[in-house]
Structure formats: structure tokens, C-alpha cells
């Protein structure tokens, strides 16, 4: 049981990291990104390949994985600088699928749809499964806490204010002298780096990645997390991710509580719950559980 809770905590952390990354790109800066599974995949694949095929230490693989995702994010942002709203959504959705298709078809590099098994985890061979889950849950919680603090600090800074200005009205921000283009690229790169870090955590935790992991289903869970928690608010992003994982995992125990609901019915119910929840939240509380409030400036006393 404890091992399961630790693994669930780790998954909640990975979802939370994804929600934090999406929050920087979409929540703070207003660039919709439906391809987040793609950046997740770049981080995961880069680190997995470097630590298996090239035999590098995990920390080096992780650093390069995060950097690769950030560079990919910066490139996407640069290429889509003039796109907004629906158009950006379509391009990023296409980008996410593009990464998945490359992973599935460039067999020489990614081992195709067989995926990459045997990705090393920190001290995995010398720990019991329970100890490994405990260690990895601790690493994940620490990483999420660090990135939460980082993006919360960013949100309160003048830089965060400028990002919000771009989100609300790009033209006005440009007129006010903000370097809109550069800041959008930077914000996208930072957000993509967090998505890449989530990928690194996923790869080294589960020890196996394949193109099937990076299907758009995951993107929908993360959007639900962020919308439920509160778009634009890092605390909301993490809270939303925890709620989504609790629903996903909690619904497993519904079968025992509702014996009539079993098998395919329960599986369908889970998907229905997620969909209905999204609709209800958008209807009743479109700003999320923890609405974004203008932060107090740094250094101000409470």
C-alpha cells in the first residue's frame, strides 16, 4: 500500500510539474500549448537515450534533457511568434504529434514503437522497490517544490507582470516598451524546460518510454489540472494536478464501493467523470479553485 501511495505521489508530482510548465506558457503568458506532450517527450527521450545508449550519468542526461526541451520550446515560440489563440493551438497540437511520430518512425534513434526499456533510475539496483519509490517520490516532491517557488517568484516579479501584460494585450505591452517577441520566446523556453524536466522524471521513474506514452490524452489531463486549480497561479497548478491524480486513482476504488459498476463500465465512468468535471469547472468557476489574484509586489509587507 505504502509503495502504491509513494508511486501515486510521484505521478502527482510529474503531473504537477507538467501543469507548472503549462502555467508559465499558457497561464502567465497566454500562449496556448496543446503540444505539451511533445516537450515532455523531448525531455524524456533525450535523457533516456543519453543514459542508456551513451551511458552517461543520470544527472548529465537530466540536464541535457531539460535543455533540449527548452531549446525546442524556444524554437517553436520563435517560429509561431505571430500566431495567437486558435492558430497557435493548432500548430502546437501538430507539433506534439510530430514529436510522437518522429519517436515512432525514426527507429535508428528512438527504437521506434518498441520504445526504450531499462532506463536507469537513481540507485535502483541497490534499493528495494519500496525504497526506490520513496527516494523517487522525495526527489519529485523536491523538484516540484523548487519549480513552484521559482515560478511563484517569477509571477511576483516585474518580469511576471510584463508577461501578464503580454497575455492581456500584446499591442499595449509593446507600446509600453516591453520586448514582446523576446519575452514570449523566453517564457515558452522556460515552460518547455519544466515540461522536459517532467519527462526526465517520468523516464527515470518508470524505466521505460515509448511513443504511446505521449498521446494527446495526457495533454487533456494537464489542461484539466491547470483549469481546475487556477490558470496563472502556480499553487493552483500543483493543486489541480493533485486533484486530477486523486480522481484518476481514486476512481479505481469505486468498483469496490459500487459493485454494480464494474469493468468497462467503471473505465468509461472514469473518462466521463473527467469530461464532466471539466465542463462543470468551466461553467461554475472558470477561473479555477484558486483564482489568480494580482500578486503583492516583492518586498511589500503583508
Amino acid at each position, binding site marked *: *500500500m505504502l509503495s502504491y501511495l509513494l508511486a501515486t505521489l510521484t505521478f502527482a508530482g510529474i503531473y504537477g510539474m507538467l501543469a507548472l510548465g503549462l502555467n508559465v506558457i499558457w497561464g502567465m503568458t497566454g500562449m496556448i500549448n496543446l503540444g505539451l506532450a511533445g516537450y515532455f517527450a523531448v525531455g524524456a527521450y533525450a535523457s533516456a537515450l543519453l543514459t542508456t545508449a551513451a551511458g552517461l550519468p543520470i544527472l548529465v542526461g537530466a540536464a541535457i534533457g531539460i535543455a533540449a526541451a527548452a531549446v525546442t520550446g524556444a524554437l517553436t515560440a520563435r517560429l509561431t511568434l505571430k500566431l495567437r489563440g486558435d492558430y497557435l493551438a493548432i500548430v502546437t497540437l501538430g507539433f506534439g504529434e510530430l514529436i510522437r*511520430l518522429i519517436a515512432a518512425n525514426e527507429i535508428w534513434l528512438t527504437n521506434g*514503437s518498441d520504445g526504450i526499456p531499462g532506463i536507469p533510475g537513481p540507485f535502483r539496483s541497490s534499493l528495494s522497490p519500496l525504497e526506490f519509490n520513496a527516494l523517487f517520490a522525495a526527489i519529485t516532491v523536491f523538484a516540484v517544490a523548487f519549480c513552484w517557488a521559482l515560478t511563484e517568484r517569477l509571477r511576483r516579479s516585474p518580469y511576471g507582470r510584463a508577461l501578464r501584460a503580454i497575455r492581456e494585450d500584446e499591442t499595449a505591452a509593446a507600446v509600453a516598451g516591453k520586448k514582446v517577441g523576446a519575452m514570449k520566446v523566453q517564457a515558452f523556453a522556460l515552460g518547455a524546460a519544466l515540461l522536459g524536466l517532467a519527462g526526465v522524471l517520468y523516464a527515470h521513474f518508470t524505466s521505460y518510454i515509448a511513443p*504511446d506514452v505521449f498521446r494527446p490524452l495526457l495533454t487533456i489531463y494537464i489542461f484539466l489540472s491547470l483549469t481546475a486549480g487556477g490558470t496563472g497561479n502556480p499553487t493552483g497548478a500543483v493543486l489541480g494536478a*493533485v486533484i486530477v491524480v486523486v480522481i*484518476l486513482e*481514486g476512481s479505481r476504488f469505486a468498483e469496490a464501493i459500487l459493485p454494480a459498476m*464494474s*469493468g468497462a463500465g*467503471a473505465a468509461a465512468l472514469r473518462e466521463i467523470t473527467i469530461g464532466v468535471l471539466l465542463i462543470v469547472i468551466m461553467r461554475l468557476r472558470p477561473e479555477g479553485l484558486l483564482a489568480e489574484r494580482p500578486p503583492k509586489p516583492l518586498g511589500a509587507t503583508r
Partner: protein
Amino acid sequence: MIGTCRPTRRAALAGLAAALAAPSIVRAQEGAIRFGTLTPLTGTGGTYGPAMRDAVIGAVRAVNANGGLLGRQIQIVSEDTQTSPEAAVRAARKLIDVDGVAAIMGTWASSVTTAVAPLCWESKTMLFTVSGADSITQLPHQGFIARTQPNSQLQIEVASRFMVDQGGTSFAWIGPQTPFAQSSIDILTAVAAEAGIEVESLIYEAEKSTYRSEVDTILRSDPDFIQLGGYAADSTVLLRDLWQAGYEGMIIGPAYAVNDSVVEALPAEVLEGVFTWEGAPAIDSEAYANVQQILGVETVDPYSAQTYDHANLAMLAIGKAGASSGQAIHDHLREISQGSGQATGSAVSGLGVLPGDVNYDGASGPCDFDEIGDITGTQFLFKRFENGAPVEFERV
């Protein structure tokens, strides 16, 4: 801001605590032996998973009604892979860590099987799978994987020889990107080359609503025998598009792809003359009749036949071992699946023979395993569609 969000946080924590406390409330039936089904109930594999799960439940119900196993009842815990390795890993963790299942049965997609396999061997839980990718049994699984599906290399070799024997003169292979797509093409090409036949191939992206351009491309080489490499959903679309494009040559597809759902979706003239092949289910066996009765169908799909066998193999191994752990199944699986013991087609009859020697012959075939967990001695059955129904054509 802090003040307003406090109650929400507290509520969320309370909700979390309630969710975590729930299992201890509902964990009834202590002392039951637990098996997990991990089939695709939603996603790409969603057409197969529910029946696969029902076949396991049917097999277990029969043993429970007959007094159980080692004097204990058997409980099935079902989880959904969502045809996603990520979701499947979460589900497998729950089956292993919370339910403490002795075996996990019915993983379908190869990526899902590869993703959950390490969790199984680390925790000494037996994994029974229907995935065909060659790489699966080559994982360092220490004997904790047994698969009832012939590996893809064997399947493709058999089908390719059949194509040559039927007198095809120009071959094509068309299918989605899967772990066995490229190796299928290579095997078909090698078999065809021995007969001096050229092979054209095309790998497409699954989940499209039309394959007109793919069909045009593949027909440009003017093939007279096409081998399909996909699953039910994409094969339905592909067969329709091939027919609309006026293709009149021969077609062969795996039985799991050209299955009942395809027959329902397409008119009979589209399917006329299409060949299917599968690891021959033991149609006249006791086990096959049991699955027919459990599922209430005339033709049992290959995957459900296999998961029925998974459950019976696990129960017999536990009966043989006298212990209910995954390690016990691991240690005694081959003692009850092969050898010269009394042939049996269900756990109910087999448990009556124990502790004497039994040899389980299942609904999907003889269920004999080699040292890495691959199935051996599979016969293959070819069928041909006539007036909208598959008719037995040949056994190899």
C-alpha cells in the same frame, strides 16, 4: 489571498484522506487469492479488452463455484490500461501494491506490456500477456512473463509462406507503425525473395478516417496479394478503401484485425475472398466450448481465448504449488502446462487430478512454453470469407 484559500486546501486534504482511507473500508474478503486483469477497456484496444476480462472472470467463477482454490476463493481485480503505458503503469502499481495480486493477465499493447513488465518481475508477480512483439520475451524478466500469443516473427513467416503457396506473384504489406511493422516487412520480403517475388510496403499512421492516398500508393506497384498489419479499427477503413479503389487481388489479415467488428461494419462483398490467419484456437476442445459459453458467442476471438487460458494456467500452477504467490506460479507453470500429464481443458477438471500430473490444453492452443516464456507448438488456422462469414480454409 491566503485567508480565502485555506478552507479549500483543507477540503482538498480531507478529500485526499478520504480517498486513501476508502480501500481499507472496502477491502473485504481477506484471505481470497487475487488476480488482476489489466486489459484495454478504453483507447485503441478498447474493442478487445472487455471480452478478455469477461473470459478471465468466467474461468475463475467456475473454480469458485466448485469450492475455490486451496480452500480459498479467488477474487478478480480489473484495471484499465487505457491502451497507454503511462496509465497502465499506474494501474499495475495499484494491482501489485494495494491488491497484492499473484498474477496480472491480459496486457495487450506491446508498449503496455513492456512498461508494466519491470514492476512485475521486481515484485515477483507473474505477467500473462497477449502481446506479440518479439522484444518482450527478450527482456530480463527472470521467467515472470508468459505469453500465449505466438511471437510476431513466427506469425508473419507462416502468413508469408501461405501467400507464396496461394500463387501470388506480386506482394504488398501495409500496416501502421508498431513494434513489429518493420520486422514483418523484412520477413515477408525474405520469404517472397526465395520465390522470386517483389514486395512493396507502406507504414501508415493509425487512427485516420481514410487511407485513400496510402491505398493509391500501394496499388501503384500493382500487387495481387496484400498482407495487412494493423488492428480492427484501421483495417476496417483500409479494406473499405481498397475495395472502393477497385482492387481485385487477394488480401490476408490477422484474425484479430479482421474480426467480428469488421464484419459488422462492412458489407459482405467488401470482405469476399479475404483471408485471415491466427494461432489455431482449439475449436473442438473443452476449453473453447467453455469460453463460448462464458462469452455467449459462436466464434471466440483469439485474445479472449488466451486470457481464459491465463486464468486457468495461474490457478493450476497455484494448485500444483500449494501456495498462492506469484513466485509459486512462476515455479510451477511449466509443470501443469506441458508434459505427459493428463490433458485437461479447465482448472476445475485439472484441480481434481492434482497432485497428479496434468497438462493444460487451452482454448487458444496447447499452451506449452519455452524457457523464455514464448509459446511453442502453435498450429495456425487460415480462413476465407465467403458470403460475409469466415470459413475454414486450411490448417498449418
